[in-house]
């Protein structure tokens, strides 16, 4: 039964995602719902399954309860395996000390034992906050073809955007000669996607050396990658072209949801590269005789009698008669009561928007663009009858407005 694994995945899922504000008050970023029936972590997990990777360690730290219970035994992603499968790896105490994961590299360092159990040739490092579909098997083939020690997936971004990313400067053969974190004057537009394949023996040594370096931030981007470059290890950039989005901010999360409604965005859930998720047996959604639905996504268990326009509804949402939703994302089991209006907004789970309340607004109605933004209503919050939640405003989880 025991055999060496060619590659296993370590998925960094411990981040708070503080720029998602009220949406990550109670859950880790990878557990944030997306696209009607998914959570962000479904994307990297499904990519692993579809790429033939059967062993995934998920490193958790910030508010792990919901993430842990969501992943469970990994069955929805076909990751319930006899040898391998999905493992939740929280920080732990030892006889000498107990510490949190200090950085991305330290998180992997603390789990060297886990990786060694599978004795893999390569380790794939992923983060749990991106929406994309990618065949890691192809990236591995490239990694092997180049006989690389490290391969970093890169995406072409526009020159203006490049200064927001870690940029890889490469030679003609794809080898990386320089790495610049958020450069003011970028030399290339190859942005790191935070997806790395490392030769495990090499990485293991670098992790141990890094741990023994006082003052290190124990971070892949800041320490491990620059150290490997400085030592002239064989490092290559793997070009990815396809949909990829960092959903680390309210705007980008909202945009990625809207991209599902745009056939030209390149984000298509309904293809052979299936994104799996933990589903519950909700009934089909019901559309009443007062409903109007166009250019929208609706999940199971919804009961709709209002107007939907460019809207994403998660399961079990109720939209009552006369309610109007435009460019909205409404998560599971929320209720939009009679005559309420929700525009350019994200409503988290179990929220109630009472009769005639107004959440968010169209950017066209906002004279000062700096005043405009996506309105957000936190989980379980209530917006009382006739109340207004202005654009960019956020209602805390459980708060009553």
């Amino acid at each position, binding site marked *: 039964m025991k055999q060496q694994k060619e590659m296993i995945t370590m998925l960094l899922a411990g981040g708070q995602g503080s720029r998602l504000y009220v949406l990550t008050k109670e859950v880790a970023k990878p557990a944030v719902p997306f*696209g*009607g*029936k998914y959570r962000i972590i479904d994307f990297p997990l499904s990519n692993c399954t579809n790429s033939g990777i059967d062993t995934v360690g998920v490193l958790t730290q910030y508010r792990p309860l919901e993430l842990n219970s969501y992943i469970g035994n990994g*069955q*929805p992603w076909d990751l319930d395996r006899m040898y391998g499968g999905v493992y939740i790896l929280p920080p732990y105490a030892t006889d000498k000390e107990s510490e949190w994961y200090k950085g991305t590299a330290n998180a992997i360092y603390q789990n060297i034992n886990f990786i060694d159990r599978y004795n893999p040739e390569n380790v794939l490092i992923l983060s749990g906050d991106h929406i994309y579909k990618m065949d890691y098997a192809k990236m591995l083939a490239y990694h092997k073809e180049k006989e690389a020690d490290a391969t970093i997936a890169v995406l072409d971004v526009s020159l203006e955007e490049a200064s927001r990313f870690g940029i890889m400067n490469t030679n003609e053969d794809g080898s990386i000669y320089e790495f610049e974190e958020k450069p003011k004057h970028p030399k290339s537009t190859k942005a790191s996607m935070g997806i790395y394949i490392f030769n495990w023996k090499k990485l293991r040594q670098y992790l141990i050396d890094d741990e023994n370096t006082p003052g290190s931030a124990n971070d892949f981007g800041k320490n491990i990658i620059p150290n490997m470059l400085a030592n002239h290890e064989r490092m290559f950039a793997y070009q990815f072209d396809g949909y990829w989005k960092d959903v680390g901010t309210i705007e980008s999360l909202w945009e990625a949801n809207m991209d*599902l*409604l745009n056939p030209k965005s390149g984000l298509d*859930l*309904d293809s052979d590269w*299936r*994104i*799996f*998720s933990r*589903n*519950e*047996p909700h*009934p*089909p*959604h*019901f*559309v*009443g*005789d007062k*409903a*109007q*639905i*166009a*250019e*929208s*996504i*609706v*999940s*199971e*268990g919804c*009961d709709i009698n209002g107007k*939907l326009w460019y809207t*994403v*509804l998660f399961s079990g949402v109720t939209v009552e008669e006369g309610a109007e939703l435009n460019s909205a994302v409404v998560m599971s089991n929320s209720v939009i009561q009679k005559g309420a209006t929700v525009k350019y907004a994200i409503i988290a789970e179990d929220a109630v928007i009472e009769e005639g309340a107004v959440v968010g607004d169209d950017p066209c109605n906002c004279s000062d663009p700096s005043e405009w933004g996506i309105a957000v209503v936190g989980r379980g919050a209530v917006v009382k009858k006739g109340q207004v939640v202005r654009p960019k405003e956020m209602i805390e989880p459980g708060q009553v407005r």
Partner: protein
Amino acid sequence: MTSKTMCILFSESYGTAPEALSAQRTLATVPFAGRYRLIDFVLSSLVQARIRDIDVITKEHYGSLTDHLGWGKDWDLDRKNGGLRILTPFTKSESANTRNRSKIEALLSVKRFIERSDMKYVILSDTNLVMHIDFEKMLAYHADSGADITMLYQTKVWPNHTGCVIDVDESGHVIDAYFSNTKHEEPQNAAFGVYVINKDLLVSLLDRAYTFGWVDFERDFITKNIDKLKIFGFAHQGFSAVIDTVEDYYDASMKMLEPGIRHEMLFQDDIPLLTRVKNSVPTIYGFNGKVCNSLIADGCKIDGEVNNCIIFRDVEIEKGALLNNCIIMQSTIVRAGARLNCVITDKEVIIGKEHTLSGRPNYPYVVAKGQNV
């Protein structure tokens, strides 16, 4: 109480069946209400009552059943003790033609299995029932009344009822039971094929059945023993439908669009209707989609007009198509400009451009699985 109870479900009715829908599958797995199979109702009721030892007797073409039930995981019935078992016919080839012609024969074929069980009570149930049965109450009623057999019935106006009708006295004692196919416009005590029976009694009745060549469950087990055994009736509360014909199927399906029944049968959080969970994407509505009073499952692409319909998973309805009062099963494609009225399409049907098909509510037009119209 429920921990001392096992259940045997019949995947077939051994009587009339909606042939057009059950020719290629068991009656138990006829698709229903957008994402379910008929057996989901009784299975969910059993799980709700914490009955976790369930056997399903099959007869033939049970591929869809094994596919749907698997090892019972989606009903939380993948247990070390008990759980869900599918009992496939176990016979020698020479008797293949005569196996399991009736409920009694089906039970005889698994008699040794029943004998071995250490359960005290056995629930026997059909699977073509669209209803939430309160098995916990029914079992308590069975034990409290000291009954040998308890049968489930409902007093209601049921003009098309064909089957067992019972007379009960004030104490709930069944004093008469007979087969009836007379059309009634007044309420009658219609029995469902749902029984609680003491296990030892079931075994001894099966011995007699073998001896005397009994084949009809209601006639031979119930009516013939009406004076010898303590047979009680337990009244069902709430919605009920039995699917014996295509008309029954269509009628019960369309009832799910009525608000009260829909909430009672499908949308009750405390009585969840469990079913096999699949990975469909959410449904996407196009610019021209227009939907009214319909149930729509996941994975659909809707760009046409849909009124009073039940749409299963992964159905595609193109621009300009118009559907009224239809039941469209999984993976059907309705091409642009097609017009359908009172049509049932089985799985994986394609309705071509500009085609018009129409049935009547009491005689819906059925398109068989995989047809390209």
